[in-house]
């Protein structure tokens, strides 16, 4: 019988693990205790053993470190093969991962190969009264939510939205058993070839992983004016996003778009500047813990749905707010 909860621990260029990994391990630890099953992390890569230790701090009892030079960088087929091989050997009951660019690419391929159920971008993972694994996930970009259950096929798979689950306090006295596994992926298994990786200048953190986001909309009036948002972002360590209107006008790249046809984000603080709050935008940021809106139009929908609103010209408020935040940070 399938046993054990596994978490796919995603690394960033082999140097660190994405924080979603720790969020998921923390929550999965509670589930593992309730089920009396083992919690394991799986790291796939090349020379990534050093990353295993921290998984233990968040509750993993075992860490499978699956290594091969061919797995240094992520490829769908290489990672899918390595992961499926390990799952077939050990038969975990549940497999979790982050709903990140990689998780979204890898998990469906693995689920289809194993013929098992997959729920993606979950905002809640839990065991019901009968200890069955159930999840909650947004539909229509958060205009509705679904509670989802699984068939008996295992592992039951889910990806979890970053920034939603709360990581536990890491405990450095907790040690995980590290199990090194040599992967057997051949170059013929990987039919795609990464020719080049182009890094975008200035991109710090992906919007979906940011704890604070400052977004600009139509009210920003032009691409050059995003500078005032960037200045504030610098002070409070935030990431700058944009509404669909700002992206469609060509002021910001598409990767900055927050909303139903952009990124769905859930930061601790979302500051909307010159954004009216159209339903498709709200769908992308409505689960933010705190929403601040700065908009000079008293009729703007967002002012009636935010935690703190200022009905005033953003070009006056934003620079002044930046100044105030600077003072706060200096205290």
């Amino acid at each position, binding site marked *: 019988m399938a046993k054990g909860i596994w978490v796919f621990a995603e690394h960033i260029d082999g140097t660190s693990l994405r924080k979603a990994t720790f969020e998921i391990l923390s929550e999965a630890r509670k589930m593992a205790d309730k089920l009396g099953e083992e919690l394991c992390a799986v790291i796939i890569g090349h020379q990534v053993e050093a990353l295993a230790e921290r998984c233990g701090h968040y509750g993993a009892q075992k860490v499978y470190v699956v290594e091969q030079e061919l797995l240094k960088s992520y490829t769908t087929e290489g990672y899918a093969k390595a992961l499926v091989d390990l799952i077939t050997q050990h038969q975990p009951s549940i497999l979790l991962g982050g709903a990140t660019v990689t998780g979204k690419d890898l998990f469906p391929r693995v689920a289809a190969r194993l013929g098992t*159920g997959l729920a993606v971008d979950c905002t809640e993972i839990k065991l019901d009264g009968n200890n069955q694994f159930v999840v909650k996930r947004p539909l229509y970009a958060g205009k509705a939510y679904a509670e989802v259950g699984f068939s008996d096929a295992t592992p039951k798979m889910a990806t979890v939205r970053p920034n939603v689950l709360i990581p536990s306090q890491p405990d450095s006295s907790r040690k995980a058993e590290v199990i090194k596994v040599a992967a057997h992926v051949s170059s013929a298994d990987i039919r795609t070839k990464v020719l080049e990786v182009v890094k975008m200048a200035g991109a710090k953190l992906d919007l979906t*992983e940011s704890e604070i986001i400052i977004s600009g909309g139509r009210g920003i009036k032009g691409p050059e004016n995003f500078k005032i948002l960037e200045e504030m972002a610098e002070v409070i360590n935030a990431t700058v996003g944009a509404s669909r209107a700002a992206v469609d006008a060509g002021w910001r790249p598409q990767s900055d778009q927050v909303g139903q046809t952009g990124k769905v984000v859930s930061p601790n603080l979302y500051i909307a500047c010159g954004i009216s709050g159209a339903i498709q935008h709200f769908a992308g940021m409505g689960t933010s813990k705190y929403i601040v809106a700065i908009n000079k139009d008293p009729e703007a929908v967002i002012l009636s749905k935010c*935690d703190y609103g200022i009905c005033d010209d953003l070009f006056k408020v934003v620079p002044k707010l930046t100044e105030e935040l600077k003072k706060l940070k200096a205290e």
Partner: protein
Amino acid sequence: MNIIACMKQVPDTEAQIRVRPDGLGIVESDIKFVINPYDEYGVEEALRIKEKLGGTVTIVCVGPARAVDAIRTGLAMGADKAVHLDDPAFEGGDTFSTAKALAAAIKGMGGDLIFCGKQAIDDDAATVGSALSELLGIPQVSIVTKVEISEDKKKAKVSRQIVGGEEIIEVPLPCVLTAQKGLNEPRYASLPGIMKAKKKEIKSVKVADLGLNQAEVGAAGAKTKMLKMTSPPTRKAGTMIKGESAEETAPQLAKLLREEAKVL
């Protein structure tokens, strides 16, 4: 080039979503349905490649009778023909059972290139493209923003969005590409296009035509099951910060963020 564009019909992004009293779906009356925006980028890219290299574009759609409107729009944009998987048995599927039906329909079509949207904006699963490529046994590249077909038409060079940048990937054909916003600007259907579309073939396909049985598709073949649908908690209006000018309001806001919300 034989190009296939997968399509789903979904509620428009501006639609208000209301959960049905039984909690197992949404109220569909009053909703405007459209081609899933990401699928539309796929259809557009398929048409552009066809216009450059020749070939045919076939739309493949799983959906109820109403989805014909979306298919007709795709045909009016310039797609040559369509396959509509419109058996009620396909309904209520999850990623797995939907991909299974699509794979069975596409298998015999000899597609060189298969486009899907990177996700459908109703269930937001973003999984059918990957699952489809797995079931067809061909490679995939997801979240694609640029596609160039090689001269010998044997491979494609594509750009894929990743965190903080993009990857340029070479992939052999046939393959599945999932389309991201930014790939292109979809055309509007022209009036002659709309007239022509009326005469184009939409082949209706049932479960039995695919050599599958009812237990493998739709809700019966699904590996996940929606137990209950709920509306999100509505956000109540919070504090409006009053003041004569930014000199008064900005310091109040900064203070609230630190002391009340404790997010700074």
